[in-house]
C-alpha cells in the first residue's frame, strides 16, 4: 500500500523549502514502515493463534476420544529357552503370571511347580507338590479369575487344593517378589471319590465360608462341599465335609465349572452338550446343545471374570459366550449370547482377563486372538507360534507368555479400551445377569467384578426427549411472539418488549434450573389439573377476549390503537391463570379423588417423578424462547416492505398477508431459528441437571425423569479416572454434543445468509 520505505518523496519544486528526504526523515519513515510491518505480523500471528486456540477444542476432544477405537497392540519380546524347560519338565498344565508381571508360574503334570522370572525365563523356585505316594496328577482346575486357587485332580481319587501367592518386599529399596504356595485346606489331599478312581476333571469355587469341589471320573459326577466354621469361643476353624449327590448323566464328561455364587454347575460332555445342574435344589436344569454344527466339537472352555459367563471354543475356530438368563416365564435357562470367530483351527485355550470381561484365545495353529465379550470386539488376531502352545495372561492383561515346545514366548500387550465399541455405545447389549439385551448407562459401582455399562443410547434419548418437550413449548410461543412483534406490534411497544426478551435471554441457566427444581417442580405436582387446564383455558381466554374486544363500542375500542393487543391481553392471561390454578384443588377433589398425582400413578399406572420431563420442558422452553424469538423476529422483520405492501394493495387482509406472504418468505429464517433453539436445548446442562432426577431411563413418559448427555458429563466427569475408558467415553459424549450443535448452528447460519442475499435481491 504505502511503500514508505523505498519511495523517496519527490519534493515539489515550488515548495522546495521543505526537504522531505533529509536522512532524519528518511530514517523516521523507515522506522514507521518497520512498525507497520511488525504490527501486521503481530496481529496476524496473534489473531491466527487465537483462532487456532478455539479450534483446538475439536482436535483435542478428538485426540482424547481416538484411542477408544484403536485395537490392541502386541509386541513380541526375545524368545527364551531356559535350561529348566530343556530338561524333562513334563507337560504344562497351567501357566500363570503374577500382578507385577515379574514372576510366572508353571504347573506340570509331574506334580511340580516352577516359578520363573518373566524377563529372563530363569528359574526362581521349584516346589514339588505333596502328592501321596504312587499318585499322579490327572487333571487341573482353577477358581474364577483372580483368586489364585488351583485344584489338582489325582489318580487316586483325591484332590489337592493350593494357592499361589506372591509377597512383595523392599529390601534396600529394591522391589523383590517372593513366590510361594499355600494350602488353605490342608496339605493332605481331599478324598473325592471314595472308590479311588482317577479324577479326570476337577473344578472348584470358593467363598469365605464354603468351598465346592466338583470332579468327574468317566461319566460319574462327584461333588464335595467344605464349610468352614469359626468357633466363637476359641477362634478355631473347623471344616465340615459334605458330599453332594447329583443326578448322574450317561455321557463322558469333558469339563465342569461351578458358578461362583454356587448356584449352578455346568457340565460339558463329549457330544458338545452342556448339562446345567441347580446346586441349591440339586436338580438338573436342562441339557443344552452347544454347537449347531454336527462335525464340530468343544475343544476349550473357560469362565469369564465373575464366573457368570462360559466361553466355549470349538474345533472350527469359533468361540461362543453362554450364561444363565431368565426367560419371560421366569425360569432360568442357559443361553447362547454371542459368537466370535478366530480362524479355522481348533481353539486350544481360552484365558479370561482378571479385571475386565475380555479374554484371549489360542488356537492349534498358534494364532492368538484378543477379544472383549460384551463389546463384541475382536481386537487382534495374530500368529504367535507354530503349532500348539500353552498360554498365560497377566492379571493386568498387559503381559502374555506362550510356551511352545521348549521355548517361552513373552509378549507385551497394549489393550487399553477393549470394552468400548460402536455396538456397545449405541446398540442393545446383553449384559451378564440381564434377561435380555438392553440399553444401559451405569458407569460405576462398588464391587470390582462390576462391568461398566456405557451405552450412550439412553443419554441421547434423554437429551432428545428434553429438547423435544422444550421445543414443544418454545417453538409455537416464540415463533408466534416473533411474528407478532415484528409485524403487528406498535413500534413504541416493541421498544419496550424487546429489552424484556433480551433480559430473558440473559438469565443464567442456573437460575432457571434452580427455579424449576425448587419452585416449579413441587408447585406443578400440587397443581397438576390447573397446569393442564391452563393449556386449554389460555387460548380460549385469549380468543374470547379478542372477540369481546371486537364487540365493544368503538368509543372504547379506538382508545387503544392497533398493535397494542398484547398489553390488553396481559390482564386477561393473568385472570385466566389465577382462575385455572385457583380451581386446581377443586378439580382434584371432583375428578381425581383429591390427589391427581396419586391418581396418575395408581389409576393410570404411570410413574410420576417430582422432577420430570414436564418441568424440564417448561424451564428449558423458557430458556430457548428468547433464542428462537430474536432470530425469527429478525427474519420476519426484514421481509421487504414492497412484498407486504403489494399484497395489501391487492386487497388481502393483514392476516392473509402474514400467512401467505410474510411467513412463506421468512420461513427459512424461522427454520434456522428453530434449529438454533434446538441446538441450545440439546446442549443445556444446568437446567436438566437441576430439574430432573438424572435417571438414565428410556421412556417417553412426560412424568418421568431423564438424563442428558450434558448433565451426565457434568455429574460424572469429576469422578472419572483420567485416561480410562469412562473418561474417554465422556469426552466422546462431549464431542457428540459439540459436533451436533456445531453442525446445527452452521446449517442455520448458512440458511440465514442465503435468505439475506435473497432479500437483498428483492
Amino acid at each position: 500500500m504505502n511503500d514508505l520505505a523505498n519511495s523517496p518523496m519527490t519534493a515539489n519544486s515550488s515548495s522546495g523549502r521543505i526537504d522531505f528526504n533529509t536522512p532524519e526523515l528518511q530514517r523516521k519513515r523507515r522506522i514507521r514502515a518497520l512498525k507497520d510491518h511488525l504490527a501486521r505480523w503481530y496481529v496476524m500471528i496473534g489473531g491466527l493463534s487465537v483462532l487456532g486456540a478455539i479450534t483446538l477444542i475439536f482436535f483435542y476432544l478428538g485426540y482424547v476420544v481416538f484411542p477408544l477405537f484403536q485395537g490392541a497392540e502386541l509386541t513380541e519380546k526375545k524368545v527364551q529357552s531356559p535350561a529348566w524347560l530343556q530338561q524333562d519338565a513334563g507337560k504344562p498344565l497351567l501357566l500363570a503370571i503374577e500382578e507385577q508381571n515379574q514372576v510366572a508360574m508353571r504347573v506340570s503334570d509331574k506334580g511340580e511347580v516352577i516359578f520363573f522370572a518373566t524377563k529372563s525365563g530363569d528359574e526362581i523356585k521349584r516346589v514339588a507338590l505333596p502328592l501321596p505316594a504312587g499318585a499322579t496328577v490327572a487333571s487341573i482346575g482353577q477358581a474364577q479369575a483372580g483368586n489364585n486357587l488351583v485344584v489338582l485332580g489325582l489318580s487316586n481319587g483325591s484332590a489337592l487344593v493350593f494357592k499361589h501367592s506372591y509377597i512383595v518386599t523392599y529390601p534396600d529399596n529394591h522391589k523383590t517378589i517372593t513366590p510361594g504356595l499355600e494350602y488353605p485346606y490342608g496339605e493332605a489331599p481331599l478324598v473325592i471319590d471314595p472308590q479311588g478312581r482317577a479324577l479326570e476333571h476337577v473344578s472348584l469355587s470358593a467363598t469365605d465360608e464354603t468351598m465346592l469341589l466338583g470332579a468327574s471320573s468317566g461319566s460319574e459326577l462327584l461333588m464335595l462341599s467344605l464349610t468352614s466354621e469359626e468357633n466363637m469361643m476359641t477362634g478355631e476353624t473347623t471344616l465340615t465335609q459334605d458330599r453332594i449327590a447329583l443326578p448322574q448323566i450317561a455321557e463322558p464328561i469333558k469339563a465342569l465349572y461351578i458358578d461362583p455364587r454356587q448356584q449352578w454347575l455346568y457340565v460339558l460332555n463329549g457330544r458338545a452338550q452342556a448339562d446345567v445342574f441347580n446346586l441349591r435344589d440339586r436338580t438338573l436344569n436342562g441339557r443344552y446343545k452347544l454347537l449347531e454344527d454336527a462335525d464340530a466339537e468343544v475343544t476349550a472352555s473357560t469362565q469369564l471374570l465373575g464366573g457368570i459367563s462360559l466361553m466355549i471354543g470349538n474345533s472350527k475356530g469359533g468361540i461362543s459366550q453362554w450364561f444363565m438368563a431368565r426367560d419371560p416365564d421366569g425360569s432360568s435357562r442357559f443361553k447362547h449370547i454371542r459368537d466370535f470367530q478366530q480362524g479355522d483351527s481348533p481353539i486350544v485355550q481360552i484365558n479370561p482377563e482378571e479385571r475386565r470381561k475380555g479374554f484371549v484365545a489360542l488356537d492349534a495353529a498358534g494364532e492368538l486372538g484378543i477379544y472383549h465379550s460384551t463389546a463384541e470386539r475382536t481386537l487382534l488376531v495374530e500368529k504367535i507360534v507354530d503349532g500348539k502352545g500353552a498360554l498365560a495372561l497377566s492379571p493386568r492383561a498387559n503381559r502374555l507368555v506362550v510356551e511352545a515346545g521348549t521355548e517361552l514366548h513373552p509378549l507385551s500387550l497394549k489393550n487399553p479400551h477393549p470394552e468400548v465399541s460402536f455396538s456397545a455405545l449405541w446398540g442393545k447389549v446383553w449384559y451378564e445377569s440381564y434377561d435380555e439385551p438392553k440399553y444401559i448407562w451405569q458407569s460405576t459401582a462398588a464391587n470390582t467384578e462390576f462391568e461398566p455399562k456405557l451405552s450412550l443410547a439412553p443419554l441421547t434419548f434423554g437429551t432428545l426427549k428434553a429438547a423435544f418437550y422444550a421445543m414443544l413449548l418454545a417453538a409455537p410461543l416464540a415463533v408466534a411472539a416473533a411474528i407478532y412483534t415484528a409485524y403487528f406490534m406498535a413500534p413504541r411497544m416493541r421498544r419496550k418488549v424487546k429489552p424484556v426478551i433480551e433480559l430473558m435471554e440473559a438469565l443464567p441457566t442456573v437460575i432457571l434450573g434452580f427455579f424449576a427444581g425448587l419452585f416449579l417442580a413441587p408447585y406443578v405436582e400440587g397443581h397438576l389439573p390447573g397446569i393442564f387446564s391452563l393449556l386449554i383455558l389460555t387460548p380460549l381466554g385469549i380468543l374470547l377476549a379478542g372477540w369481546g374486544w371486537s364487540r365493544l363500542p368503538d368509543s372504547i375500542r379506538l382508545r387503544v390503537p392497533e398493535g397494542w393487543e398484547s398489553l390488553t391481553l396481559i390482564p386477561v392471561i393473568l385472570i385466566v391463570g389465577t382462575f385455572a390454578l385457583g380451581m386446581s384443588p377443586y378439580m382434584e377433589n371432583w375428578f381425581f379423588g383429591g390427589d391427581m398425582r396419586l391418581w396418575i400413578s395408581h389409576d393410570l399406572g404411570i410413574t410420576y417423578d417430582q422432577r420430570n420431563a414436564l418441568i424440564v420442558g417448561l424451564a428449558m422452553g423458557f430458556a430457548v424462547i428468547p433464542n428462537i424469538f430474536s432470530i425469527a423476529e429478525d427474519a420476519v422483520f426484514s421481509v421487504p416492505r414492497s412484498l407486504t405492501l403489494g399484497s395489501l394493495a391487492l386487497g388481502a387482509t393483514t392476516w392473509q398477508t402474514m400467512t401467505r406472504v410474510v411467513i412463506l418468505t421468512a420461513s427459512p429464517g424461522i427454520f434456522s431459528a428453530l434449529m438454533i433453539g434446538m441446538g441450545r436445548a440439546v446442549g443445556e446442562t444446568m437446567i436438566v441437571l437441576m430439574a430432573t432426577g438424572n435417571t438414565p431411563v428410556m421412556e417417553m413418559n412426560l412424568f418421568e425423569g431423564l438424563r442428558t448427555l450434558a448433565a451426565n458429563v457434568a455429574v460424572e466427569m469429576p469422578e472419572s479416572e483420567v485416561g480410562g475408558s469412562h473418561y474417554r467415553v465422556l469426552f466422546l459424549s462431549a464431542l457428540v454434543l459439540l459436533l451436533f450443535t456445531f453442525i446445527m448452528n452452521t446449517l442455520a447460519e448458512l440458511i440465514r445468509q442465503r435468505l439475506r442475499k435473497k432479500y437483498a435481491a428483492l
Partner: protein
Amino acid sequence: MKKNSLNAWFKSGSPGIWMSGGAVSIAVIMTIGLLLVIAVRGLGHFWPADLLQATYAIPGQASHVVVGEVVQAEEVPLARLKGAGLPVPDNGPEFMTRELLKVGNRDIYGADFTWLVGDWLVDQKKPVELMTLVRREWGNFYGTLVSVKESGKVIAEGEAGWPTLQERIVRVEDLAKQLSKLEKKDIGAINHGLERLRLKTRKLELEKTLTAEAQADIDAERAELDAKYKGLESQLLELHHAVDRDSIVVREADGKEIEISLGKIVHAYQPNGMSVFTKLRMYFANLWEFLSDDPREANTEGGIFPAIFGTVMMTLIMAMIVTPFGVLAAVYLREYAKQGPLTRVIRIAVNNLAGVPAIVYGVFGLGFFVYVLGGSLDRLFFAEALPAPTFGTPGLMWASLTLAILAVPVVIVATEEGLARIPRAVREGSLALGATKAETLWKVVLPMASPAMMTGMILAVARAAGEVAPLMLVGVVKLAPSLPVDGNYPYLHLDQKIMHLGFHIYDVGFQSPNVEAARPLVYATALLLVMVIAGLNLSAVAIRNHLREKYKALDH
C-alpha cells in the same frame, strides 16, 4: 346474527393476531413473574419474622405447645391429608389449611420445619418475650430466656436477663472477631511459611543441593515459626476461654431448658416486640451480613461473601485475558486477513462456537488446561510439591481460562461488528494523509471501535458470570478454605479453588442436607446473581445504542 358475526370475526384473521399477541404476553408474564417470585422470596428472607406461639391439638392426641415462624400456608384437599394418615373428620369441609412452621431448635427436634394443620392450632398468640437466637450451629433457636450465666454462675434472671444478654453478645462478637483474625491471618501466615519451608527443602533435595548449611538455615527458620506459633497458640486458648465464659439458659416451647454458650450465638432478638423501624434496621443489617459474611453450617446459613469474591475475581481475570485476544483476532479478521471464502468460513465458525454447549468447554478445560497444561507446569516448576498437584488440579486460573475460551467468540463478534461499522471514509482519510495502516488502526480505527469492544467485553463478562456447568469441572468448589487473594506471597493464588455464586445456588439448593432451611438463602443468592447479570447486560445494550446513534451522525 351473532353467529354470523363470530364467523366474520374468524374470517378476518383477527384470532390469529390475538393469539400471536397472546404469545408475547405470555413470554413477558413468564419473565416478569419469574423475577418477581425470586425477588419476593429472596428479599423476604432478611425480614425478622414474628414468632407465633400456639397449642397444637390433633384430635384424639395430647396437645403440645409450638413456637415458630409461619413460612407458608396452603389449602389442601381433605383426601390428601387423610392419605398422610392424619385423623381428619370424614364429613368436614372440602379443604383444610396446612401451615409450614419453622420451629428451629434442630438439636432438640431433629428438623427445623414441620407441617401443621392450621385448624388444629388453637390459642394462637405472639408474646413479646419470645426470642430468636441465630446460632452458629444447629440453626435458629426459638424460645424464652431464663437466665444469663457467667462462668456457670447466674448473674441475671427474668426481666433483667435480656439487656444483660445483649451486652454480653456484643462482647463475644468482639472476641470472635479477634479470634478469627488470629486464626486466619496470623496462624494462616505461619502455616503458609511452614509449607513453603517444606517445599524448599524438598526442592533442594530434588536438585541434590541440600547442603548441611541450607538445612540449618531452614531449620532455624522453622524453629522461629514454631516459636511464634507457640505464642499465638496460648493467645488462642485464652480467647477461646473468654468466648466460652458466658452462657444462657433458655426454655423451648414445651418447657425444656437448655444451656447455650454465648460463643455459639450470632444474634438474639425478640421480633414480636420490635417496631417496624427496628425491624427495618435489622433487615438491612441482615442484608449486609449476607453480602459480607462467610457461610455457616454447610453453606445453608450466613453470608455469601467468598462466592461473590470468587465470581468477581474469576470474571476479572477472564476479562483481562479475553479482551486483548478477542480484539486481536477480530482486528486480524476484519483488517488484515484477505476477505474471501476462507475468512467467511472462519467467521461462521467463530459465530457458531458461541452456540456450542458450555459443558463442552468445561470438558476441554479439564482435559487440556488442567491435565495437560497444568500437569506439565507442575512437572516443570512445582516438582517439589508432587505428587500433590499445584496447577494440575482444577483452580482459579483454569476456570478463568476456560471461560475465556468460551467467551472469546462473543468479543470477536462484537468487535468485528464495531470495526465494520466504521465508515470507509474515515479510514481512507487517514491513509490519504500518509498514515501507515498500523497508525490508522491504532490512532483512528481502534479508538472509534472501543465502545464496541467495551460492549463485547461486558457481554462476555455477563455470559461468564452466569455460566456454571463448565466451572463444576475446572475449579469451583462448594466451600473454599480461603480466598484466592490474601496477605501471603504470592498474594494472588491462581492455583486455588474458588466459590462461585452460580455454583453456590446449585450446591445449596440441590446438594445440601437441609434444603428446606437453605431455600430462602438460595433465592437471595439467585436474586443477587440476576441483578448483577441484568445490570451488565443492560449496560451493554445502552452502550450499543449509544454507539449506533454516534455512527448515524458520521454516516452523513
